[in-house]
């Protein structure tokens, strides 16, 4: 039952990732990415981290992707052209080759050093209570710093996108 869900989700994830990377229209890319994020949230739930999975849908798919879609529509971006400059063909061959090499090396390392079965989840593994306790005791300083970072990002975004009134 779990394996069936895993394979279906994996298929959806890879298919939507392919659409994100290859489709010319940025709006279609964005919607495919949103779909991808929701399927990855499904993976999180499957692995037992339900709170993070729900946060992923709420924050990533529900807010960040909507923001990206907004900007694409506001800027009225046309369909994108493939790389056609002199270095275009060179790029189109070298980039996938290099990435493939990297992926093979990484994949082999990960495959050899992980067990073949999942251990049972610890008590309260994916719940908000456990996460909250850790966040407010051991990771208290990073928590405060990241709220500061969010404020900085907000101020920066507003300033950068403001129209200069000259």
């Amino acid at each position, binding site marked *: 039952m779990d394996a069936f869900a895993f394979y279906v989700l994996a298929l959806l994830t890879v298919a939507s990732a392919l659409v994100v990377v290859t489709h010319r229209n940025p709006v279609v890319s964005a919607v495919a990415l949103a779909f991808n994020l929701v399927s990855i949230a499904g993976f999180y739930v499957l692995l037992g981290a339900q709170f993070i999975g729900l946060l992923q849908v709420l924050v990533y798919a*529900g807010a960040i992707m909507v923001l990206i879609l*907004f900007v694409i529509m506001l800027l009225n971006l046309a369909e994108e052209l493939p790389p056609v400059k002199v270095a275009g063909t060179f790029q189109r061959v070298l980039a996938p080759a290099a990435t493939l090499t990297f992926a093979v090396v990484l994949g082999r390392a990960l495959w050899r050093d992980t067990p073949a079965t999942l251990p049972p989840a610890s008590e309260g593994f994916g719940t908000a209570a456990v996460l909250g306790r850790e966040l407010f005791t051991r990771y208290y300083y990073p928590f405060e710093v990241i709220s500061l970072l969010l404020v900085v990002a907000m101020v920066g975004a507003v300033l950068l996108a403001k129209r200069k009134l000259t």
Partner: protein
Amino acid sequence: MDPVAILIAFLKIFLVFNVLMGAVAFMTWVERRVSGIIQYRLGPNRVGPWGLLQPIADGIKFIQKKDIVPDDAYVPFYLMAPALAVVPALFAFVVIPFGPEVVLFGRKVPLVILDMDGGLLWGFAATALGVYALVLAGWASRSKFSLMGGLRSSAQMISYELPLVLSIVAVVLMAGTLRPTEIVAQQAGWFWNWNVCKGIPFLGFLLFTIAGYAETNRVPFDLPEAEGELVAGYHTEYSGMRFAAFFMAEYVNMMTSSALGVTLFLGGWQLGFPVALEGWPLWALQIGAFVAKVAFFQFLFVWVRWTLPRFRYDQLMNLGWKGLLPVSLVNLAATALLVTFDFNVTR
């Protein structure tokens, strides 16, 4: 998986889905009759006694309309958007407890479809996903009115998600759990035990209601889809059953918003006064209490719609960011203080 559990789950889903769809149809009738009463005229009264068969007549009208797809539209998203509007709205209802723990087929069954640990977050995640339908419908119609309406609607929805979620966080702070069944269980007893009276009384409830009106694109926040402003906003280019789907999605969103408000603030299915009953009579009464509270909330939606004029778009955004957001932050801080000193937050 034993078959009885599957049967019970299926029964719950079947019941909730059908009641929701029936309630949506009923709400269209209620809206038109109540607006008639408020405006000192009769509503629909031709089709059936008191016009009760009007929703059926509306449905037949929608189904027999011609299926128009604009020439220039981006067809996959154009066709997907109405479905994308209805599904998340229905999904959010999955975590709402509509009754106590009943004994069915010899086992205890909590009357909620999905009783998970972060249940409340599921409701908000589903509502957040509903924004995509508006954006995609507005963009895929390839029309200036639709695009502007779609962008405005979705900007409004995500802006008001903040005060909505913050007012809920205050309730979660007092309750100490994200599970809706536990939140309802904590409001047992007399009606002054309901969350609306705890913490700072009524402030969180008021914030939630106002943000709920903005979330569901209802007056006074319905500028993006008002006639005479942007024709019909993001659903300008839709006709027939697709338009009806957006309509349905709006009503289901209203119902989800009401149900969430009832669960979090008004005690869910709790009666609010002790009754000397046991077993099925008590449970039926409690389910009836839930339905009555949600019905009251829905009536409030309709009442406010036909009473208040609508906000201009910049007034709307100002109210959200500069008005509701600071108030909800103050509410959260004050509730946190009250929880620290354990004053009026009996768990």
